């Protein structure tokens, strides 16, 4: 995802000289292609994320489209008030990019787990929040957000994620992407959990259940209409996010379904259950610790389908 982001950004910057890139002294072996091609539109601001967010706002107020880049929580939570006041309140054209969302830096410890970003940034007025699932989504979304005239947050994984979408889906801002049709339940995933959702779909299929899968790269604007349609069609919706379950994708889905009348659809929100992981775990083991592994998800789906 990281690679498809930077390649796309370079293509966009070639055509639009308003595009700038700021980094907080991170991006070694990633950002070099941008730096060498557009040195006058790049600044390494140093290890100073509050200043980076403020500078980005000032540049945007001077007509630039500014991408800020760092890892995990550094470009978001570290400078949250700058994002709120300087960027969102002023509708500044700043695109905040965080690499290493979720447990991508799992073994580095809890400081490097990016888990609260989606919920927190979703609450900020004027902010678009997006978490692509694979390099295909990452490429398309990088282009789409560069064309949106306001604050955006782009949450990426790391590098080397497999391509999930074998054909390029139809990308529209704020719309979910149907990947697989089903009947008994629907998994809606955001970010890099899509591949796990598809694995769980296969496992449940082997046990005789028909489960649909949608990718929801846009947390905001949120596809309320899509969720309403899904709730009409499926008796169970399972949300999957590599993020704190409070306030994220599951909450967004649940609040739409709660407003429906009559309501028959059950929503099960799977994510990180309000805890820190205190040991070194690789990404997959970290997911296993919080029940975001294929086996646990499969079991949850089958239990829910059988109780219907």
């Amino acid at each position, binding site marked *: 995802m990281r690679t498809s982001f930077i390649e796309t950004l370079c293509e966009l910057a070639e055509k639009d000289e308003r595009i700038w890139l700021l980094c907080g002294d991170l991006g070694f072996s990633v950002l070099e292609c941008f730096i060498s091609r557009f040195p*006058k*539109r790049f*600044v390494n*601001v*140093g290890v*100073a994320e*509050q*200043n980076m*967010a*403020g*500078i*980005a*706002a*000032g*540049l*945007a*107020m*001077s*007509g*630039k489209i500014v991408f800020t880049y760092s890892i995990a929580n550094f470009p978001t939570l570290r400078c949250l*008030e*700058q994002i709120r*006041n*300087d960027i969102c*309140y*002023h509708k500044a054209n700043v695109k905040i990019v965080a690499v290493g969302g979720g447990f991508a830096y799992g073994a580095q410890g809890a400081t490097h787990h990016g888990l609260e970003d989606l919920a927190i940034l979703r609450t900020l007025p004027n902010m678009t929040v997006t978490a692509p699932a694979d390099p295909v989504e990452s490429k398309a979304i990088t282009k789409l957000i560069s064309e949106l005239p306001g604050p955006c947050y782009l949450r990426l994984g790391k590098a080397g994620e497999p391509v999930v979408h074998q054909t390029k889906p139809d990308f529209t801002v704020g719309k979910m992407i149907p990947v697989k049709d089903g009947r008994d339940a629907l998994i809606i995933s955001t970010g890099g959990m899509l591949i796990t959702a598809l694995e769980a779909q296969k496992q449940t299929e082997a046990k005789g259940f028909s489960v649909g899968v949608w990718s929801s790269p846009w947390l905001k604007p949120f596809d309320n209409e899509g969720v309403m349609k899904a709730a009409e069609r499926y008796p169970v919706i399972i949300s999957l996010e590599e993020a704190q379950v409070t306030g994220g994708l599951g909450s967004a889905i649940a609040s739409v379904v709660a407003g429906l009348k009559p309501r028959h659809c059950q929503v099960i929100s799977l994510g990180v259950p309000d805890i820190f992981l205190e040991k070194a775990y690789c990404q997959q083991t970290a997911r296993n610790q919080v029940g975001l592994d294929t086996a646990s998800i499969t079991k949850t789906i089958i239990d829910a389908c059988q109780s219907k």
Partner: protein
Amino acid sequence: MVPTSQQLAKIIRSHALKMVHQANASHIGSCLSIADILAVLYNKILRVDSRRSDWPERDRFILSKGHAAAILYAVLAEKGFFPKEWLKDYCKDGALLTGHISHHVPGVEVSTGSLGHGLPIACGMALAAKRDGKPYRVFALLSDGELDEGSNWEAILFAGHHQLDNLTVIVDYNKIQSFGTVKDVLNLEPLAEKWKSFGWSVREINGHDFETIETTLGNLPFEQNRPSVVIAHTVKGKGISFMENKLEWHYKSPKDEQLKDALNELEKES
């Protein structure tokens, strides 16, 4: 007739006193300490056009100490950015003129209110002007207490490193912050040396001497390839004797009688 900077300062002090009185608002002390600086800036220094507040080539002025909003609104109204009648609505229900400075008001570049935000934004604007080869200049007015915020020091380091000589900071050094004197709460001294060591060119002035303010800000940058900072020694509550150097006027709003006394004192001023 265009008022002199002295006259303008007196007028905007009077506006600010009336505004905070009718709104029962705080921060009059912080407004009065920067009245003379704002009067000179808008009378003599800033290249701005009240008929085109979004003129791309304008100088940018950011009030980072956004709590001193009343006095900036006052000077902008006097300079014709919006009708003076609006000042009467300051802080009232549904008014555009919020208690902390708002960019929704013509002539205001940036909304502030949380301290330590103005200077990083100013750095971004100054960097854009530099790289685009544009002649406009960027000014940020900071409070002394505000320099406790780490984000300012990130920006001070950045501006020195990037040689942003189109950027000028004015520090309103009135020596009193929210809950005590600067010296007692978190001492800033040696302040000039700190800025110098971060690569800035520093001038220390009396922030109430009109001629000095004008001469100093009329000679920017102080040095090529260095951002400029004016440490303006000021008096909190300046111009109203019973408010001067009193921490309580960070919070209190003048009562009817106090307003009358204050306006009388301004009137008698030569």
